[in-house]
């Protein structure tokens, strides 16, 4: 047996996999050890990556680089200042200093999310939903479009929390809500099946890794 690094990696992976599988017996210290080990290693890895690829390569090196543009260095100071102010959130008495940094991040993120959702999801999806009913399309597209439309309307009718009581008691609204409930059930079933499929694939990969380690 060749005790290489790959073999050691496979051995550690094999042991940790068995420890994770031990959760079938219930919560146990080995399982917790594996979980803590995974969290610790991940955190350390992430910290190392951020320090190297963010702080060192995108902040410190450009700031003290001789070859860089002096004007560009000044621009680097702005995110540095905001980052330092964000650290002031640690102290309750100085937390107000970090508010500008939080405001900038929140404001930019909110603007991007709203604009992105509008132009990347809402408008394109509405266009796609109405495109099915183009006269040039075949009846198959029309049928698909009708199903999608019915499912959309039925789902919206089912979630009619904001509607008044009189409207909710109407028959056709309740019928559409019932159809929407069916679509919701099918959707949730599909999501569960997809989740099971994903998990099953991961389990197969782990079993295959164990088998590969035992029978290379």
């Amino acid at each position, binding site marked *: 047996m060749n005790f290489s690094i790959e073999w050691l990696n496979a051995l550690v992976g094999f042991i940790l996999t068995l420890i994770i599988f031990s959760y*079938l017996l219930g919560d146990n210290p080995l399982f917790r050890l594996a979980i803590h080990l995974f969290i610790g290693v*991940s955190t350390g*890895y*992430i910290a190392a*990556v*951020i320090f190297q*690829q*963010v702080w060192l*390569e*995108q902040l410190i*090196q*450009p700031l003290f*680089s001789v070859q860089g543009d002096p004007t560009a260095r000044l621009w680097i100071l702005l995110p540095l200042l905001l980052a330092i102010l964000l650290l002031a959130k640690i102290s309750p008495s100085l937390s107000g200093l970090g508010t500008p940094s939080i405001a900038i*991040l929140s404001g*930019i*993120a909110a603007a*991007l*999310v709203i604009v*992105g*959702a509008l*132009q*990347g*999801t809402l408008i*394109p*999806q509405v*266009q*796609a939903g109405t495109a099915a009913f183009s006269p040039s399309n075949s009846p198959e597209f029309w049928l698909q479009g009708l199903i999608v439309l019915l499912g959309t309307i039925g789902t919206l009718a089912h979630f009619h929390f904001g509607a008044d009581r009189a409207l909710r008691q109407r028959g056709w609204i309740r019928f559409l809500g019932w159809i929407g409930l069916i679509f919701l059930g099918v*959707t949730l079933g*599909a*999501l569960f099946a*997809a*989740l*099971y*499929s*994903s998990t*099953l*694939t*991961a*389990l*197969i*990969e*782990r*079993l*295959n*890794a164990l*088998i590969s380690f035992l*029978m290379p």
Partner: protein
Amino acid sequence: MDEIICPQCAHSNPIDAVFCERCGALLPPARPATEPLPPTLRPGEEPVKKSTAELEPLLPAWMRESRQVQSEPPPAPKEEKPAPPPDPLASLSASEPEEEIPEWLKELGILSEKPSPSSEELRFEWEEKAEEEEETLLPEGDWLQHLGSIPSESSAGGGAVTSRDVGAEPEAPSVPSPLASETFPEWLQGLSETPSPTGQEGTPDWLKAFDKTPATPAAETPPVAPTGEEGVPDWLKAFAEAPEAPAAETPPVTPTGEESVPDWLKAFAETPAAPAEPTPATPAIITPSGEEDLGALLEMEIPDWLSSISAETTTAETPAEETPALASAELPAWVQAMRPIEAILTGEEKGTEAQEEEREGPLAGLRGVLPAVPTPLPYSRPRTYSIRLNLTPAQQTHVQLLEQLIAEEEQPRPRRAVTPPASPRLLRWLITVLLLIALFVPLFFQTRLTAMPELVPQETWQFIQSFNSLPPSPKILFVLDYEVATSGEIEALTLPALQHLNSTTQANLAFLALNPLDVSMGRRLLDLLHSTQPQMPLPPMLHLGYLPGGISAIPLFATTPAAAISETMRAEWLQSPFQKINTLGDFDRVILVTDNAENARTWIEQTSPWHPHLLIVSSARSTPMLLPYFYAGQVQGLIGNLNAAAAYEQVNGIPALGRAYRDAYSAGLLLALLIGLAGFLWGLLTHRAHSQPQEKEA
């Protein structure tokens, strides 16, 4: 102080006590400090002349009216004169004989003609016992003496009056009496015309004695200056003329024979023996006032006939007292003395008796020092309300129903016997074992029982076609955004695409990690590719590292990819085939490898303005969320699950992990399907088993 201190034992006695309550000694007279002394004429003071006419308005209405009935109303010149301050003493001496004669006395004309027995008795008392204080302390009854003495005085001195009037008259009778002989009432005229009413048939014997008595006071009255005829009013002259004859004949009282004196008068005759004791320089009867002095005498020795008369008179005087114009203090003493005993015993005596005597502390023995407890107000029992509700039959029915409901809620319901389900641990172990067997056996034996998929999903087919249409030396960006836990699935899905690229074109690969843990995943993918195609060289690749900033960094990278990466990576970027890439749209293909639908959606949304040729390799859990973007045309191809990867491998003709995992994957899906079906059937059976007892209970 309403008490009398005993001089023998210093015991405090009530004000009305005659003898000491402790030692029985005779108590000295006392006069309450609060009771002012009646106005008296003290030695050294000169009497003030008063005109009786000036006091005419002070007379009570009933007196004036009674006089008007029997005589002509006299002229009232007194109203034109300014009225001096009234002098009760002068009024008593001047006007009592005529003005305050009550009706009963008027009716008893004979009696009014002569001094009353009581006045005679008083006269006897004062003269016998306290001659010095007679004029000051006992004004009451003087007028009676006047009635008897005037004739004698007039006969002797020519119009002399009582001892009080003596002092008032000598000056000058400036105000002549308005009463003329014509205005006298009939009974007075009768008196003047009748020289001696005594000895008549209608006169009782005891009244005959009164005809003789006026001689006695006349002898004792000090001589006064004779008054001229001008100074004596006419009505008074009538008095002077009438008794003139009998006055001379009237013997003193003492010589009166025993036969002519009634029994009650004999008692008066015997009383003078008492003043022989040395004690009193004061009246024998101790009363708060001189008026009640007389009352005490009357209380003791008043005859029956006078008692009845006095009672009637009192009732007649009651309305006069209630008139606001006549104060109680202005009543003549003899009228007040004739009030009933109950009326006399008001105020001080009753109050004294009613007052509590202090029995403890420094105020022990004193009465009325502390305010007495006020008399409780009239007490009326508060109205009581019944607490019982008046319920209608309908309300009672509702109450019973409510009580029944509450009672039923409180009673424990028999718990329905529920068959306990199979042990979760056993079931879990059973499923685990079945699943492990179903997965392990195909992997261990590397079976190929299941056929490869003949049909390729549309999104996967589009993915393949997208790769097939790549230009030579395409520049392909792999954006890695998945967790390490899902790396086994993601690698199985990505590997067919890498094999396709590596086998068909000499693509330039760049790997950008959106997750710090994915920095090394690009190299791992290439290592996996090399393990499946060891004979083929790996394509050139560029690791752009981690893109910090999350959603904010995506537009920056889409706009200027070189500006978003680090300095080190930028240097490599500038030396790589990607140096001509200015925007995200300049990449030939952008392959988003993700297991998170939200991050994939964000990437799609933020990069849509640059219209990249976007392909997605997604975990099966995220695929349902990302398919709409494929159908909307925002994503050109998608590999969404292991079946799609197996189909891609089938198309490529290069078996990979899809083929190796397919039997196990199919067995796992089949097992899940069977377990789900078994659970569904078990649920139907248990539901039916639970519903039947409920139907039976219903």
